[in-house]
């Protein structure tokens, strides 16, 4: 690993020694846990959302369920976790301890109130006890009270109102955390900006159902015969997180720094969030699966990648891929290509034939004597489905075709079938262009 690479980044005026933070969740529940994570290399923490002791927090049991896919475990986790059930005093003592022991790590307090007064109270308490920043939890999917939890995230005027109240109470930077359980995140983000938010973090968990019990018809998690649609996280939600981050990064009116969250486990996941606009990234489910140690590989992997490409600062990477995002109608449709097969590498499984024949251009013939696919280039749609399932890397690749090349028209009805058809299809006049 190159020592010359500096992974530090400025986020809302605070210096993070690297962009990797724990997100607000069970992995940031106590000072002991957070201290371990700092020792492992995490630059900062968004501490589990404080509660003001006004109402008791009781966690359901069991509180999580996960989705496995084939041999891969935990590609998504669904939880019905609540905000911190620890007394406010204990959480604040943890803040004091962490700031004393780890002054160079950034402590972000996540807070959630049920009224303007409560938001202000928690914000001030956090600031007074050493929090470097605040993250406003407008997105917890399990607080089923109007005017709180993710319902705030869907009631945009409340976002603005609560953000403004917090900003009035403290001087430290304020991040607003968004729920993905809406269509357009830019709108609530702009309300947060109007309230004075210094940054946006996204995404919180996606409302979902990870499974259903087939013996009792109770969806998961089964909390003694009852379940609830609740927050889902992990690698399966990464595309959703990247969508919202990239869309906010494209919004010039917003123009706030972003903290990316959603299924990050490796330096590549993190880098993808960074080049789509995140200055910092936050992780929970990856830690729930593998522990704090994964940060070592994120640090080493990102450093080596930057060294190889001669990139000095993480900030040079932030948003690097955003200008390459367009609407689909802006593509260059004149340029076309196909797959090409290096059949010397082929092991003869024929999965390409199956998918091409059943889900694509029917461009492959199966040479059963040699157990090899034979490509009819003119029929290939370049969907690349065959490449996705091919177990041999490098066997199937994409190749651009010359401008004069024409793809054979997609399947027209077989003449044999046509002669049995006694009717003409009903076609109305097309609407005027």
């Amino acid at each position: 690993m190159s020592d010359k690479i500096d992974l530090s980044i400025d986020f809302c005026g605070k210096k993070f020694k690297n962009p990797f933070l724990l997100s607000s969740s069970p992995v940031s529940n106590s000072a002991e846990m957070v201290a371990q994570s700092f020792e492992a290399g995490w630059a900062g923490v968004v501490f589990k959302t404080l509660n003001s002791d006004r109402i008791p927090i009781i966690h359901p049991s069991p509180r999580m369920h996960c989705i496995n896919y084939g041999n891969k475990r935990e590609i998504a986790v669904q939880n019905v976790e609540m905000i911190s059930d620890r007394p406010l005093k204990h959480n604040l003592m943890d803040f004091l301890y962490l700031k004393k022991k780890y002054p160079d790590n950034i402590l972000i307090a996540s807070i959630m109130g049920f009224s303007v007064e409560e938001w202000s109270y928690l914000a001030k308490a956090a600031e007074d006890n050493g929090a470097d920043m605040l993250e406003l939890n407008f997105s917890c999917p399990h607080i089923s009270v109007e005017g709180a939890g993710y319902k705030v995230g869907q009631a945009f005027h409340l976002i603005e109102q609560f953000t403004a109240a917090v900003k009035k109470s403290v001087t430290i930077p304020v991040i607003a955390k968004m729920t993905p359980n809406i269509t357009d995140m830019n709108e609530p983000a702009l309300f947060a900006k109007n309230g004075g938010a210094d940054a946006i973090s996204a995404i919180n968990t996606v409302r979902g159902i990870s499974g259903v019990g087939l013996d009792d018809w109770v969806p998961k998690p089964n909390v003694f015969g009852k379940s609830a649609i609740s927050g889902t996280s992990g690698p399966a939600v990464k595309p959703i997180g990247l969508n919202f981050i990239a869309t906010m990064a494209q919004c010039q009116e917003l123009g706030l720094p972003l903290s990316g969250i959603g299924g990050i486990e490796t330096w590549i996941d993190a880098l993808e969030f960074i080049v789509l606009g995140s200055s910092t990234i936050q992780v929970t489910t990856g830690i729930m699966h593998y522990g704090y140690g994964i940060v070592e590989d994120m640090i080493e992997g990102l450093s080596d990648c930057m060294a190889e490409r001669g990139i000095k600062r993480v900030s040079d990477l932030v948003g690097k891929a955003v200008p390459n995002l367009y609407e689909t109608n802006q593509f260059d449709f004149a340029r076309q290509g196909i797959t090409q097969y290096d059949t010397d590498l082929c092991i003869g499984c024929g999965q390409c034939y199956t998918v091409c024949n059943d889900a694509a251009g029917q461009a492959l013939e199966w040479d059963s004597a040699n157990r090899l696919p034979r490509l009819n280039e003119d029929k290939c749609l370049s969907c690349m489905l065959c490449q996705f399932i091919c177990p041999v890397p490098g066997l199937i690749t994409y190749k651009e075709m010359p401008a004069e090349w024409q793809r054979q028209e997609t399947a027209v009805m077989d003449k044999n079938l046509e002669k049995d058809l006694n009717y003409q299809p009903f076609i109305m006049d097309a609407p005027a262009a």
Partner: protein
Amino acid sequence: MSNIDNFKQMKKGIDLAQAMAEADRCLLCHDAPCSQNCPADTEPGVFIRKLRFKNITGAIRTIKQNNILGGACGVLCPTARLCEKACSARFKSSARPEGADRPIQIGKIQRFLIEHSWERDFKVFEKAEPRSEKVAIVGSGPAGLSCAAELAKDGYQATIFEAHPEPGGVLRYGVVSFRFDLNFLEKELADVKALGVQFKCNTPINGPEGAEKLLEEGYNAVFLAPGLWDAFSLKSENKNIDGLFSSVEYLEALRNGRLLEMENKVCGKTVAVIGGGSVAMDCIESAAELGAQDVYLIYRRSYLQMPAETEELNSAMQAGVHFMLLNQPVDYITDDADRIKGLQIMRTRLGEADDSGRRKPEIIPDSQWTLDADVVIEAIGNKAPDDSTQWWPHVKVDAKKLIKADPLTGLTSVQGIFAGGDIIRGPALVVNAVQDGKIAAKAIKAYLGKQEE
């Protein structure tokens, strides 16, 4: 603890999670090569796909419908040279001739699915509408069981005649417990019995024209699958030597209630086994398991020419067997009471290849040496009994007294008499016998259908 307790235990199979993990590695090949390489058309490509898509009951159904002895085959098949040899997950290609060589463990998945069906009491077959046609099956080994089950599935009245006290043939009397235990066999037999197959044990069909008479006794067709229960011997005149066994006698004794007697003969003693095939491996490994002090394998060719499976060879080596390769026994040494004392052995060297393609052993002159042994087991091949041709005098046989049967139908030279299993091709695999039974059952149904017209 007696060595016998260990001896009875077959290695545990894999569990659901392991089977699912294997199925998940499967490439779900188009035109699955594993299926093409199963001699009994058990269709691993289909049952693994079904397991992969969590259609566990469907996977069990596929196996049992195609191979009523799917459990036995899952345990006993040399999968490394059958289905798993063809598996694409070995990642072999012309560009990568060495491959990854990690085929899906098809045999283990198959065994799991069958054991799982017993565990959850999943029944594949419904009782068929009974038919009037009666078929006699001679022998309750894999071929006979397979044929009887195929017929019973369609309601034909299948009756198996078995010479031994209990059914199973080679599955019961020709394989050692740690490879295939009786508990497993009983469960697989129960699946056959549940189809309505009738068993007549202790009923050898060995009288003059015994097999052919069955047609006169009201059976509409006969399937001959008696197996090969006589053994080749190096010195036929020495048959009454105490302590000299054929592999048939020895392996049978381990299964028919004489295990303790055999343990007493073998434990702490020196055992020499002659031969290099799978049966020899069963003999040497079981002798080691029963506590023999020294077990010698005497084989006249070298390691690479041994017909035994690699896994069996490795297992025997691990059991501490001394492999005496390139050694040819020429005589037995006995005491005054005709008890075995040892063997006279000549060293050999490999010459040119013979008809089997293996290099032929040539005896080295003046190389004789003597090996002391308390027990000697000959595992040099099984054959049809000398008088077997009298049981079916009109059925054509070859020089080895193996029955000549049409490979596509199992039909013999006598109308209504079909044959399969080792009696038509010599010693072969369980899975080959299963296929013989299936092929013959199909032909018998066609034959009976024509008779009705």
